[in-house]
């Protein structure tokens, strides 16, 4: 079950760390970092239904 309600204890802190991780990177390097991050998080989640739901949710540009 994909959690779509607030679940980050420190939203501002996480957001800052996410942006900071890209400091000084080229666009290609940033894209590579994002890809590695997605793969790491996907493996952590593991559950196929949750991942499918996340893919579906992300595919909607809003």
């Amino acid at each position: 079950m994909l959690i779509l309600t607030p679940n980050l204890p420190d939203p501002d802190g996480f957001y800052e760390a996410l942006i900071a991780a890209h400091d000084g990177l080229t666009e290609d390097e940033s894209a590579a970092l994002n890809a590695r991050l997605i793969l790491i998080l996907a493996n952590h989640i593991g559950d196929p239904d949750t991942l499918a739901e996340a893919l579906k949710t992300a595919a909607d540009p809003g």
Partner: protein
Amino acid sequence: MSAGAARTPPALRLYPYARSADQDADTPARHPVIVIGGGPVGLATALDLGRKGVPVLLLDENEGVGEGSRAICMAKRSLEIADRLGCAAPMIARGIVWNLGKVFHEDRKVYEFNLLPEDGHAFPAFINLQQPYLETYLVEAIRRAQAEGAPIEIRGGNRLTALAPDDTGATLTVATPDGDHTLRADWLIACDGASSPTRTMLGLDFEGRVFRDSFLIADVTMKADFPTERWFWFEPAHRAGASTLLHRQPDGVWRVDFQIGWDVDRDHELKPENVRRRLTAMLGPEIDYDIVWTSIYTFQCRRMRRFRHGRTIFAGDSAHQVSPFGARGANSGLQDADNLAWKLAMVLRGEAPEALLDSYDHERRQAADENIAASTRSTDFITPKSKVSHTFRNAVLALAGRHAFARPLVNSGRLSTPCTHDGSPLNTPDALPGGPARTRPGSPCPDATLEDGFLLPRLGDRFTLLALNIDPDSDLPCVALFAPPGSDLAARYLGAARQALYLVRPDQHVAARWPSHDPDAVAAALKRATGTPC
């Protein structure tokens, strides 16, 4: 895969053209089964039918085995089929077994893996063996079967040039060095490859996805000690190919595959000096080698919408084509032959209705879809089609070096495994509580160790009951075995059950299973598995 036209070298003319009486007949000679094509699939189909006593004529425009190593990975299931057909021993004797693989990205080794194959199987997960050896051993097995009376005939130098199918078979025009003649076939099996002339003559579809890439194969003998390992480079620093695969074959020959891009000048790339430039860049200037064979291939992933068209049936590459990654071409073609031969033999003997052959179409299309999906996934990983796909592929490779979790995502080809025919009309619903999933109805029987050998040879090639820890009284051939707790036989066939009865098809797939012997249930399952209305 489509390679350059193969010419038969004289040394391998195993069945040279010889004039047959059919060429002088006043009316077209009639044959119950004609097989078109002398590749592994055609030869295996003819051998299997002939061993079952079905008269079969195989026509091949060539006069023997083709040139070049071509399909080199024979998976365990193919070896098991070959064993049933009596030609696995020379394959094992000559084939190369490997377990260690290494994956490189640029000039960095990402990781290495050991296949650690499961114990309790007569045959390894697969062997590397050049296709001409497989074809030769199949022809030798046909010769042995003929000597024992199997009604098989091979005619080399006989090329199908026209075909008129009808409700009771087909009329064939066959060209030979002595001119054309006409034959009648009750059943026609087209095993004539990815560019199947039979398919073209019938104007049948063959649709799928084109991969805009080409691969250069070089078979080389090296005068250096190289370990028996599979090495796969993604984006190698030597730049000899966008990806490169090194694989060992028998006779000290190494297969090198270079991914060289779509818009290539074939003649230019195949010039020995240009092939050598790539090889030397990859192997290093200090390695001395000789080139044995080269070829450039492209491929598509596609299949026919249906494999059975009345009394013409397609098998192997003529029916479905996959990328070479995962060794699913020849291996799946042999499974087609395995699936088709017993069904056609039963129909011809009047033991099953023609409708049984629709299950060939059903089951092997299912297998083709599985193989196409697997090989398409491998291809998309090896040759990413977009920038983002390339980014993710390289992210996987970057993570795989340090983190085990990413290694299962690395896809340089998934080993061919046989299809479990879930949903087949021949299956009886699973009735064995606690039975292992891997032997559910539709599954190919996994091998297992017995006290005095292995299980699969005992199952033979007729409908057979496999009885574990029970002793049924049945008219069917029955293999009754004691499966001790903890044995691989118990693990693979009993699971949580204490005893079991399996109905095994002639191709050694499970048709049905129960916890006990109910003769009526067995009779009903047998009817269902032979396409007979209950």
